[in-house]
């Protein structure tokens, strides 16, 4: 967006009545930044990868768009798209889980909360998983666990680095312990990937919490976070209730985690692809001394 366009936007947004604004927003032509509240052309916001050019705020990005942002055109090969969630516990709270799934699938056009596939980043092959917060808050059920595990196993056998864009509210309670166990399953797959001397980079986006934080989000060789993303194990409200006092504003932000040593580097989304390409090219797989473990990893992986 040029400076002139920007002034133009400001003028326009100033002159718009509230109703008019709302209509334009709902039309999708204009978007309002959820941080600085300025109005921008949705098209321009998209072109800037959903990062507000006014204040730098990173709006949530859904999985389709994220794949477009990261993967070179025409190199994306989606994997395991045929995996659909089921309702193994016949779970029913205020609504049946099966109904919830059907509704969410219809509303989002997604089958579950992660998309996985192989592709290239500036010509370098990668195995990429992208979580999607729209699908039940990016919660991790059997399908998320299975798709990520298969992705990692495939990367191990193909000697590809793994990149996972994380965003999640945590476990999917409607799948009970099956959900919790996915944490271990994915971590196990990462152990074999690691033993094969390969690179794993999780990208922590807003918000990354609960079981995802306590498993693959924190297991990267290099851990990247997006600016100001909320990242934590326990929910902020849970902790506030226990303490009976308000927490500092930067608590559980990417910056707070960097300060406490759990994030390697904070990278603005607009720089992400370039930086990933650089990091991947710096890490070429080397032969490992743990050849036995590597052998096992090969034997176990599916392809």
């Amino acid at each position, binding site marked *: 967006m040029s400076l002139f366009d920007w002034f133009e936007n400001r003028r326009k947004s100033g002159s718009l009545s509230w109703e008019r604004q709302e209509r334009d927003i709902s039309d999708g032509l204009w978007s309002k930044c959820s941080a600085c509240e300025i109005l921008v052309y949705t098209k321009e916001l998209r072109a800037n990868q959903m990062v507000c050019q006014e204040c730098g705020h990173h709006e949530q990005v859904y999985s389709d768009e994220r794949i477009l942002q990261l993967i070179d055109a025409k190199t994306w090969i989606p994997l395991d798209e045929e995996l659909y969630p089921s309702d193994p516990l016949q779970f029913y709270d205020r609504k049946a889980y099966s109904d919830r799934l059907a509704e969410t699938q219809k509303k989002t056009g997604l089958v579950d909360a992660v998309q996985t596939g192989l592709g290239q980043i500036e010509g370098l092959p990668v195995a990429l998983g992208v979580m999607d917060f729209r699908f039940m808050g990016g919660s991790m059920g059997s399908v998320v666990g299975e798709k990520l*595990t298969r992705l990692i196993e495939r990367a191990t056998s193909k000697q590809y680095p793994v990149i996972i864009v994380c965003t999640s509210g945590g476990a999917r*309670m409607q799948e009970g312990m099956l959900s919790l166990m996915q944490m271990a399953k994915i971590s196990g797959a990462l152990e074999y990937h690691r033993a094969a001397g390969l690179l794993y980079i999780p990208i922590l986006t807003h918000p990354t919490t609960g*079981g995802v934080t*306590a498993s693959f989000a924190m297991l990267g060789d290099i851990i990247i976070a997006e600016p100001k993303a909320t990242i934590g194990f326990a929910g902020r409200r849970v902790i506030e209730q226990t*303490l009976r006092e308000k927490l500092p504003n930067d608590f559980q932000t990417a910056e707070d985690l960097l300060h*406490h040593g759990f994030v390697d580097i904070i990278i603005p989304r607009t720089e992400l692809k370039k930086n990933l390409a650089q990091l991947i090219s710096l890490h070429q797989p080397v032969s490992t001394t743990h050849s036995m*473990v590597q052998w096992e990893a090969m034997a176990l992986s599916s392809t």
Partner: protein
Amino acid sequence: MVTTERKPLLLDFEKPLVDLEFRIDKIRELAKENGVDIGEQICQLETQAMQLRQGIFSNLSPSQKLQIARHPRRPSTLDYIKAISDTWIELHGDRGGSDDPALVGGIAKLAGRPVVMLGHQKGRDTKDNVARNFGMAAPGGYRKAMRLMEHANRFGMPILTFIDTPGAWAGVQAEHQGQGEAIAYNLREMFRLDVPIICTVIGEGGSGGALGIGVGDRLLMFEHAVYTVATPEACAAILWKDVSKAPQAAIALKITAQDLKSLGILNQILLEPPSGAHCDPLEAAKILKQGLLQNLEELTQMTSQQRRQIRYQKFRQIGVWNV
């Protein structure tokens, strides 16, 4: 060790049984005082008590099991360790700044063989519970556990973990010390270890805090223990927006040993003494020891590669989906 002499704190559903047992004692006492032979009546009453006990303990609801799992007299990790070991040397510290009393561990001799044992440690009374943070481990606790497991791996000692926690500690310090990182690290590294690993849920298996020492070749679970993705209270608050729906959540979440066996998560259920482990801790310890030794026997026959493979396959196959 808690002994059978001490009267357990009473749970609601235990009341009819305890009342009956009290009456039997009373009658026996009276008869003795008065020199009356009431052998037959006593025998009848005791059969009645046995049936009542069976009725109660074989039909416990998930929330009732949760109450038993959390019972203050239920044997804790240290109770079991001391009861089943020939030698026990507790070791301390994560070598990084803390020694978490909510997660304890050390080296023991079990049936003549060196092993590393570790587990969540709840307190016995309120003061002890405050010191032990109610068995909710801090990041340092998980790091201590990992350090001890690495030690075990280095010296070829099997690892026995005991799970008994409402969940990992949720607090400002826990976040700043990396609760997520500490658990995640254990989840990955436990798949790497060469030695046999047996995990046993002895009481309350709470979420990621339980899983953080729960990756093993075998997962055992006591009959009345529970293991859940979130406490039924938290689940009710989030999904029902109503904490009083916790009993329903407890049912829906499938948290009992029996449920988890049929979901393919458990390897083995350890049957408890007739009135639960809290009423006969020494017997419960015997059962635990037997279960551990039997599984150790099988696991030590395998190569470390075989064990890593069954460990991975055990978790690899968990999950249900449609195609």
